[in-house]
């Protein structure tokens, strides 16, 4: 614990705009990411609102089918590339990784800032594509439609995705080197917090997968712009090859989105159960296993694309295999709760939301992995509901769990616990109301990506649209009480949760260089049993 607090912290050391735009401090870069990602999230949510408004009635009466195509494409592009992929690693990862390692910064601070600028440039290109007419190919950019049929801004949006990819690659590289080389004395691999293991596994996927999608999207762009032929069936090219290359990254990208929130869940669950994470090394290695298996399952997106039934069988089997490490995590979190001294503060409520939604998302993933069932539910709302349960229910809930956990560390102030609990429950209820009906719709055969539907689907669609309103309100709440907390929140002190971990041993907000003295680590990450349990 700190004997004295320095009046200087990373926020007030220099408050000029230039000091933010040219900062090399990982904590400030995390805040910069938070600003851009929040803008992208609001943008994506507006597109989603358009989709749900259109689907509130069976007739396609609000927008034209072309506009609807653009709405769901831009919702996907904004949410996948500019929210889900960076949200936990670039914001929470950037902020806490060096603190968790007892380091002054990431290994390459300038590269870290460059990553943010690259991200902003990519985002600007994408915004430009949106305001100058939009994109209508779906976020997956499938040819030949993207190369030949579409009249929309595919090249500009593709360029945005291509550029943003490099931000992701550089962040992954930076984190890998940081974890290898910047650990404090005594911080061995098996004393690392599980969030660090999750970030390491994520970085592995970023470094190995992202270049492939970058080159693939670039191939689409040059095929469209200069007439080179890679996927053109008229020349003998194969559009399915694009799907293979695209999903070789974009399936592992799902694990870029979910692994860091999973790591966050491990941190929060240990703290608010006042226990060591059950089976630490299993949880740690399950992150690596998910990252590795994640690279071997991409063709389950192609079951109806005409791939050989034998390779489909292999990919189906491997997809089941990737469920094993995910289940290991879920079981171990549950076992961590068992006989723990559960402390029901707001971050823990978000964790429970995560567990419930991730469970449903994971189990319905097994339906889509089964060859026979997938043929029935492919391209229906069942799939839409499944991946929203993983990505929004899992990744975004995990982000909010982490944000509520680290908010006192980031800002030095507390927020209203009651309001945060209400928001968590509202999001959980609204989310289920929005997406559970979509499982039924999909099972009944409603295909995705249509702006009208037969009247018999109306009741469930209205329910879903109503749920989206509740969900939207749930997301507005944190913006309000966090803003309030920034100005009026009570002082948090260095360790409001009485948590283990080096990040809690420095003051809140931390010093510009994190620690007054170099920390030395002598025990594992979650030695809560050695601490006094004070639950208030």
């Amino acid at each position, binding site marked *: 614990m700190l004997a004295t607090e320095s009046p200087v912290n990373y926020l007030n050391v220099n408050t000029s705009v230039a000091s933010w735009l040219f900062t090399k401090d990982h904590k400030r870069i995390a805040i910069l990411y938070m600003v851009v990602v929040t803008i992208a999230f609001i943008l994506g949510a507006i597109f989603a609102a358009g989709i749900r408004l259109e689907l509130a009635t069976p007739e396609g009466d609000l927008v034209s089918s072309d506009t609807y195509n653009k709405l769901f494409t831009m919702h996907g592009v904004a949410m996948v590339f500019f929210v889900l992929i960076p949200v936990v690693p670039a914001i929470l990862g950037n902020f806490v990784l060096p603190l968790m390692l007892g380091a002054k910064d990431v290994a390459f601070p300038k590269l870290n800032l460059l990553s943010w600028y690259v991200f902003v440039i990519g985002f600007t290109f994408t915004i430009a594509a949106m305001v100058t007419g939009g994109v209508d190919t779906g976020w997956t950019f499938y040819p030949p439609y993207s190369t030949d049929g579409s009249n929309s801004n595919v090249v500009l949006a593709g360029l945005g995705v291509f550029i943003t990819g490099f931000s992701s690659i550089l962040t992954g590289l930076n984190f890998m080197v940081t974890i290898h080389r910047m650990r404090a004395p005594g911080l061995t691999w098996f004393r690392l917090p599980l969030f660090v293991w999750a970030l390491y596994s994520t970085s592995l996927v970023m*470094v190995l997968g992202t270049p492939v999608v970058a080159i693939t999207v670039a191939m689409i762009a040059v095929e469209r712009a*200069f007439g080179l032929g890679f996927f053109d069936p008229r020349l003998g090219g194969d559009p399915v090859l694009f799907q293979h290359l695209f999903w070789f990254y974009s399936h592992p990208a799902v694990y870029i989105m979910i692994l860091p929130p999973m790591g966050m869940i491990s941190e929060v669950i240990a703290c608010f159960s006042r226990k060591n994470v059950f089976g630490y090394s299993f949880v740690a290695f399950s992150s690596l296993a998910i990252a590795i298996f994640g690279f071997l399952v991409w063709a389950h997106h192609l079951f109806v694309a005409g791939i050989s039934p034998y390779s489909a069988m292999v990919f189906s089997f491997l997809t089941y295999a990737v469920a094993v490490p995910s289940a290991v995590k879920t079981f171990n979190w549950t076992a961590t709760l068992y006989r723990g001294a559960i402390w029901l503060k707001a971050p823990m409520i978000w964790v429970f939301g995560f567990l419930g939604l991730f469970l449903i998302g994971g189990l319905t993933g097994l339906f889509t992995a089964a060859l026979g069932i997938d043929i029935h539910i492919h391209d229906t709302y069942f799939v839409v509901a499944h991946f929203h349960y993983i990505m929004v229910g899992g990744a975004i809930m995990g982000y909010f769990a982490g944000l509520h956990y680290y908010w006192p560390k980031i800002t030095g102030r507390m927020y209203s616990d009651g309001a945060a609990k209400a928001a968590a429950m509202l999001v959980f209820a609204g989310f289920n109301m929005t997406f559970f009906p979509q499982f039924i719709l999909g099972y009944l055969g409603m295909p995705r990506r249509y702006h009208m539907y037969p009247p018999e689907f109306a009741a469930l669609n209205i329910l879903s649209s109503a749920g989206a309103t509740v969900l939207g309100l749930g997301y507005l709440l944190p913006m309000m009480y966090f803003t309030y907390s920034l100005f009026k929140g009570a002082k948090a002190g260095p360790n409001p949760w009485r948590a283990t971990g080096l990040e809690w041993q420095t003051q809140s907000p931390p010093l510009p*260089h994190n620690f007054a003295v170099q920390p030395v680590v002598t025990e594992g990450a979650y030695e809560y049993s050695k601490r006094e349990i004070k639950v208030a």
Partner: protein
Amino acid sequence: MPDAAAIHAGDDGHGHEHVHHPAHQHHFQTMEQQAEASTLGMWVFLITEVMFFGGLLMAYLIYRVWYPEAWSEGSQELNIILGGFNTVVLIGSSLTMALAVRAAQTGWRKGTIVFLILTMMLGLTFLVVKVFEYKEKFETGHVPGPNFHFEGPFGPQAEIFFSLYFALTGLHALHMIIGFGILSVILWMAWRNKFSPQWYTPVELSGLYWHFVDIVWIFLFPLLYLVDRAHNVV
């Protein structure tokens, strides 16, 4: 307790009393840690580069297996003399690059400068030859697009071959241009006498990059120029 004056806003503030190397960045404990981190970072970066080219090579592999005749005929349209010459040039540049790294390591400033200039000249030679090759393709109508023209029954598939030819060699040439830029900076640093046997990491790492770009060409040359050529000579 740290007072405000001892806290640096950036990592390159120099407020310490003890003497340290000017290239030492403050967030690293030691120079060794810094060098190890940089080297590891470079290797990880090169792995991402392998994956980057890997996407295109995967497309190459699939189509080559599907359309061997088009590949054979397309590859015979490439200029093996110029391609071979460029291969020798690039291997030569790898040698001079390695010598530049060695010179930096032993603190021989003049040697570093001379070998860096030689490396850059050889890189430039490669690019100039490449421009002539591309020009030839424009003249013979072998550039994919609306004006693509290829005799024989395998015209459409040959367009895929040439698309991959331009994508792979173009991406490689782009890496050469970036490498040229990097070496210019290193040359300027060497001129300013920034390197010493204690610290020459930038020379070493740009050397790694340069060798990587060379190795990519060592794969591209046989894959594009030599594929199935012997079969047709006989």
